[in-house]
């Protein structure tokens, strides 16, 4: 069972959750109040939903050995556009206004994704550079959209997206779960996942096998931007306002981290959507933990960094083997040093 690729991420998540019980005995308690579910676990899922979405898109981008740094900016732009549209409308609370805002925000997100996709897949710019452009410029665009102000909206239907409840659960959780499910069906029930892994694993061989990488790579940047757009709607809806400066700030780094924690290699190829979800939950749990155990705010990032390093080491088979050997000393033992199974080649 320890061989399963999701084993260690799951262990880490479980350990983090258990650690919280020490500080907050009723950490696992879930109450029903006014027909809504409440509890720390629900909060983690609820506030983690935007990160799960962004990380989901990031997973597919990373699978093609790319990276998308612009998702944070896309989050900000999508939220800003939606809020501006609603606040400027005659009837902010009408479903039509909200649907229009959603369509506008996601449409623009898709355009941003298309820009990334064209730059990477057609023009051949390195992904980190191509998306860095939008990462930097996008914040400025978000500021322009909101005129440098925080735009607040009062709209019940819009509030539903990030802050509302449906069937006792926060709507954001249900929506994120649906997207995860759909994405995994889309990649694993069609050949999309295989072709993406092939393109990411060996682009030259993939071309010679007749795979049209341009379209596939363009597609994942579109998907990543769309996910970021939805995340932007959730974030701005949850606080009923759009902050071009701070919405989605550094979410690209959290998303990349979530992907890596979930066991997908930054060099591309094999990816794991389940791993990414667990990775995103680890990061969100960590944020929650920081508050519940009362770590001073100025040292939160340092604390987070240590946990992340620890998690990465625990997941590394080479490190675990080393640690095991150290423990086995001074007896000579069986001289076993299992290397990463992925790096071995059998025979001549």
């Amino acid at each position, binding site marked *: 069972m320890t061989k399963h690729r999701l084993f260690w991420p799951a262990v880490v998540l479980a350990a983090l959750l258990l650690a919280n019980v020490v500080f907050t005995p009723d950490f696992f308690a879930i109450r029903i109040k006014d027909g809504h579910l409440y509890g720390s676990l629900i909060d983690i899922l609820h506030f983690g939903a935007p990160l799960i979405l962004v990380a989901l898109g990031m997973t597919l981008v990373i699978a093609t050995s790319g990276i998308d740094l612009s998702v944070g900016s896309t989050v900000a732009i999508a939220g800003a556009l939606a809020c501006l549209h609603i606040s400027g409308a005659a009837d902010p609370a009408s479903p039509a206004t909200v649907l229009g805002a959603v369509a506008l925000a996601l449409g623009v997100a898709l355009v941003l994704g298309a820009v990334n996709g064209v730059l990477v897949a057609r023009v051949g710019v390195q992904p980190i550079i191509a998306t860095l452009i939008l990462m930097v410029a996008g914040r400025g665009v978000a500021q322009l959209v909101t005129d440098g102000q925080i735009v607040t909206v009062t709209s019940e239907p819009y509030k539903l997206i990030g802050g509302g409840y449906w069937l006792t659960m926060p709507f954001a959780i249900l929506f994120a779960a649906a997207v995860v499910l759909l994405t995994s069906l889309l990649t694993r029930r069609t*050949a999309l996942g295989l*072709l993406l892994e092939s393109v990411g694993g060996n682009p030259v*061989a*993939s071309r*010679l096998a007749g*795979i049209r990488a341009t379209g596939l790579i363009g597609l994942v940047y579109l998907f990543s931007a769309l996910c970021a757009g939805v995340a932007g709607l959730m974030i701005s809806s949850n606080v009923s306002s759009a902050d071009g400066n701070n919405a989605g700030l550094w979410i690209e780094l959290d998303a990349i981290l979530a992907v890596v924690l979930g066991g997908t290699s930054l060099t591309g190829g094999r990816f794991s959507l389940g791993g990414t979800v667990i990775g995103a939950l680890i990061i969100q749990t960590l944020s929650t933990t920081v508050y519940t155990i009362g770590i001073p705010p100025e040292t939160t990032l340092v604390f987070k960094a240590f946990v992340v390093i620890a998690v990465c080491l625990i997941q590394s088979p080479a490190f675990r083997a080393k640690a095991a050997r150290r423990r086995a000393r001074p007896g000579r033992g*069986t001289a076993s040093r299992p290397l990463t199974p992925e790096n071995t080649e059998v*025979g001549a």
Partner: protein
Amino acid sequence: MPAHPARQPVLEAHAIRKEFPGVVALDGVDFRLFPGDVHALMGENGAGKSTLIKVLTGVYASDGGEIVLNGRPVRITGPLQAQRAGISTVYQEVNLCPNLSVAENIFIGREPRRLGLVHWSELRTRAARLVASLDLDVDVSAPLNSYSIAIQQLVAIVRAVDVSAKVLILDEPTSSLDRDEVRQLFTVLRRLRDQGVAILFVSHFLEQIYEICDRMTILRDGRVEGEYAIGELSQADLVARMIGGELAGLEDLSGRHGPHAEADAAPFLRAEGLARSGAVEPYDLTIRAGEVVGLAGLLGSGRTEAARLLFGADRSTEGSVRIEDAVVTLPTPRAAISYGIAFCSEDRKTEGLVGELTVRENIVLALQAARGWLRPLSRARQDEIALRWIRSLDVRPDDPETLVRNLSGGNQQKVLLARWLITDPRLLILDEPTRGIDIGAKAEIQKLVAELAQDGMSVLFISAELEEVLRLSHRVGVLRDRRLVAELPNDGSLTPERIMATIASGAPS
């Protein structure tokens, strides 16, 4: 084991064991290497040769056994430590940094220093001296990738030799060298041997083994079959011991097809004045249905480049291609695939397989790519296809979920072949399909090619081994200096010597 002149082995291995998930690669291997000997390590693909070398050089940690160096047991924990202990290795695939200069590659990790900084002029001077001592005409400040694979390999050897090696391990050093380069290499090896260096030599070229080696150890299925002085075994005996007496794969292929049985068949593909500037000069070539056309020529003669144009792997700059009399354009491999053309690259690792995907996934890749991602092959279909081809090509291990990078070279080649055969191609281009693979797998692949042609598939067969080209081809195109200089019908009178003469003179003889 036969007694050896009273010399102490410089390197000894006792009961080495190495396991990979699902495979025992080495099972109690004993091995010894004497100073001043060139020692051959023989065995089929998957017999454990590469694994043993990697254990000896610290790339893999063994799961059991002991290594004794100069009479003292050692624990080799990594390539660097192996190097310091005096064991240097040159691998089958050149493991240098192609974007660094030749000089930097030779001294990487042990650069001459002055005041803690790299002493660049000293580094270049020393590199130039080393290269000159091997009579190589190489500019040491040029990036390594501006040279052919053959030169890169020699640079790797220069580097290994200079690490003051007591033990030099060469894994398939000659598979990408032409005859002159092999001679040059052997001169160097003999000099090193006379200086008392122990050389471990792995090669699939039996003639070379008999030319350069003093002793050999034969591995079979991860065990030692025996150790022999080179004169003790005939080549036939050696082969029999390597494959364990099953000579079935080696049956004579001659007479499988008439010399030019397909002369009146309709042409499937016709290249007219096809060229790519800087890669290959304009050439005409016709390939008929059911015909095997061989391409012969030295390394860098344009064999591969000519074939790549027919697959759309590179774009042609002039000329045209007709498929069944219709002019077609082949801007991408995808276009060529749609016309039923398949291409197995000579560089399996970087241009063929996706290492981190499974055997099954690699086999269905081209077929799936042709269908598009919206029309997936069901998992049951994939399993069925993979299992059928694993069985019929005898891929080992036979688990379709093994990662392709965990397979040996010959088995990887079979997976690549299977990938294209399931697309049911009309023209199969094989670029060095038997390079670096063992004699058993080689015979199997040759047999398969002959059978496929008999069933009506056209084959373009590229190989550096003239015997192999002759055995399979109906016609042989000869390339020299990026030009197709002759097309020789294989009418029974064609011999490797005549092809060599054509390559040498540039005109049919």
